[in-house]
């Protein structure tokens, strides 16, 4: 199925949830914040937050800034 990750369309497995998506991307959980369809998802809920067709996922972290 297709979902949008950080604005880019990607094809992912139908059984995908946020925890699996994060680990498949190689992201360090402590470094990132995940927003799923405009809702911030606490890390405890990643494993039980299933992804569906056309979902919008934003994965962000801190960088340098003034």
């Amino acid at each position: 199925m297709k979902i949008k990750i950080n604005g880019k369309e990607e094809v992912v497995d139908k059984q995908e949830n946020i925890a699996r998506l994060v680990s498949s991307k190689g992201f360090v959980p402590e470094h990132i914040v995940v927003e799923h369809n405009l809702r911030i998802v606490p890390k405890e809920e990643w494993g039980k937050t299933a992804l569906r067709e056309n979902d919008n996922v934003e994965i962000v972290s801190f960088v340098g800034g003034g």
Partner: protein
Amino acid sequence: MDRVEDILKIGGKNIKNRLFIGTGKFSAYELMKRVLEESDVDVTTVALRRVDNEAASENILDYIPKKCILVPNTSGARNADEAVRIARLSRAAGCGNWVKIEVIQDNKYLLPDNSETLKATEILAKEGFVVLPYMSPDLSMARRLVDAGAAAVMPLGSPIGSNRGFRTKELVEILVSEIKIPVIVDAGLGTPSSACECMETGCAAVLVNTAIAIAQDPVAMAKSFSDAVGAGRLAYNAGMPQSTKDAKASSPLTGFLRNE
């Protein structure tokens, strides 16, 4: 005034070093880390961005001293709603509840949108954020930001990254005299002397990024800024003298070795 006692308090935190340093534009995180450590900074800003695959391994938080108060900014926000969304995401990262609101639509001068900034301040202050809004120095807007629950106001000295110095002095002086919360000059301070001037004027702190990050020796430049900020604060506390156009003799002018 005893310098040791002169502590800035914002959001329940004690801040000794009135130089805040932004973390953008450094050539390497390791260098940024040395700057923050060696200038003994208490407050530092960061930005929030979408993660890309390659950069995921290195995290800026590993290079920021633990004692630093982290102030995520909302750069990239073009209206209040976007700023609120970025602020909430930043807080969810678990590094505290401070936020520097930055709402900018003008790409040439990067001047803030004061009215959208006010809207975001109202919302985020109610949600318990320690809100530091980046603003154009305007007295009535600063008063509204105070009423909205801002913890400090951050008027620009000159456009972001321009290194043009404390061009807004006349207007910022009015804020300092009329506003009861800390006034922190943010943006455009290109030289330690301009940062010193802000402090002499009575500003509570300054935020510097570009001038330090792009210096040939950022560690030395940060120390210089830190010293300048301390010197300016000391002068302000000592009571700045009034200036006059005509001379006021500092030595006795009575006739000497001469009969008059």
